[in-house]
């Protein structure tokens, strides 16, 4: 590369370079089972994406709902599709 930034390890492998593109973790949050939440303070970047992961089981049953969500500004809102059959949900917000 003619200009920019590179970080290399002791074996001279490039770890990070400004030729890369990646997604940076901005925020994580866990919504409890069967509960709606509003998480505040989510950093803003020009482009963001949300991933979510179902945690545990509800009543020993895999037939469960995951939280719905919306991301607006610094708020991540988690909604409950079912009042008694929504798993805990782990949210990750990435940005670039």
């Amino acid at each position: 590369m003619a200009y920019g930034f590179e970080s290399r390890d002791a074996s001279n492998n490039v770890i990070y370079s400004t030729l890369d593109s990646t997604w940076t973790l901005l925020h994580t949050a866990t919504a409890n089972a069967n509960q709606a939440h509003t998480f505040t303070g989510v950093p803003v970047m020009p482009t963001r994406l949300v991933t979510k992961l179902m945690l545990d089981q509800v009543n020993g049953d895999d037939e469960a709902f995951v939280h719905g969500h919306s991301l607006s500004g610094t708020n991540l809102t988690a909604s409950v599709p079912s009042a008694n059959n929504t798993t805990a949900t782990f949210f990750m917000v990435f940005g670039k």
Partner: protein
Amino acid sequence: MAYGLQITNNSNEILIDSDFAHYHYIGKATYVSTTHIPNLLDGNNTQHSTQQGQHMSPSQVNGDVIKYTIATNSTSSPPPMCFIKPASTGSSAPHCGIVLTKRSGSSWEIQVLQTRGGTNASPNSSTRPNLYCFSPLSHMTSSQASVGSSTYGLATFNSSGSKTFDSRLKPLKVIGAQAINAPSIARSASKANGFSPVFTPDQSSNYNVTRYVSEANSSDLMFYAPSLAHACQQHSVSTDGDGFQSQGYSSFFYAWARTDLWWCFYRNVFQLSHVNSSTAKVNSAYRIYASGHVWKSVQDNNSLLAAIAAAALAFATFGASLVVVGAFVATSAITSAFTSAGLASGTYLPYSDGARNQGENVTVLLSKASYYD
């Protein structure tokens, strides 16, 4: 940011920001065991009811449930981000996906569903995938956070003095992202095939994911895409007959009826394929996680008319009612088989002939295993 370090690429996209807790590699999850949901097979027959079909359909092949564990530094640490590095890619590779993540002390247990081939009576397992796991530095165990004697690289700290990035600890480098969905249904074609209904999924969706780095093939790729959607499908068959049982003064008319119900519980899983040097394909489909077959027979010997009426009633109260079927199986000893299989108890009965969480976007993230090997 008022102070600190922020590095952007030529597209002005942020690569490193000292304010944020970047994910770093904490190792491959430790393989624990492979199991699968046992066959939920049960039913009764009467003296004259058909004896056919007292088996699972050959196409009801439950996938492998592969258990892994990975440590974090406390009982309150969030789950790690686990990328699946499949053992093979391409259109004939098994589908796989993370179907359960649960805490176990300061560790997390992760269960991956991977499809099996063959038939119910003779299934074939595939080589299990590896899970490459990532966590913020603040949730690493001391061994995961160890940099040894290495003094090369770059580290950043936030305003609280906590380290947020360390190039010696292999930060996560995402090379592609794409939002995808599950199909609306697992199988749209008819399942009817006598007492061997066909449950093989025939619906899937393909998504092309543009990579930020060029690759000759997909063998080095790994993906993050938790399974959110699941689906149930069912098929029922009703048979009946009547006749006269001749046995002297004890001769009688009889009528019998039997209703069979098969179901499959599917989870959304994924398959990686190579398209070209800058594109990978993700196939999103349902594959069988649990399945069952129950049947119930009734017979009436009072009179032909009474027997037919009883059979009709049996159809009305059993054949058309999943609630009755559910209660029938839930009270049987079969459910205890979950415990012996080392799985959380569950009935896995069909809630309906449909899907849940199907409309939820799953964001697929791609990375390369060779960055961390």
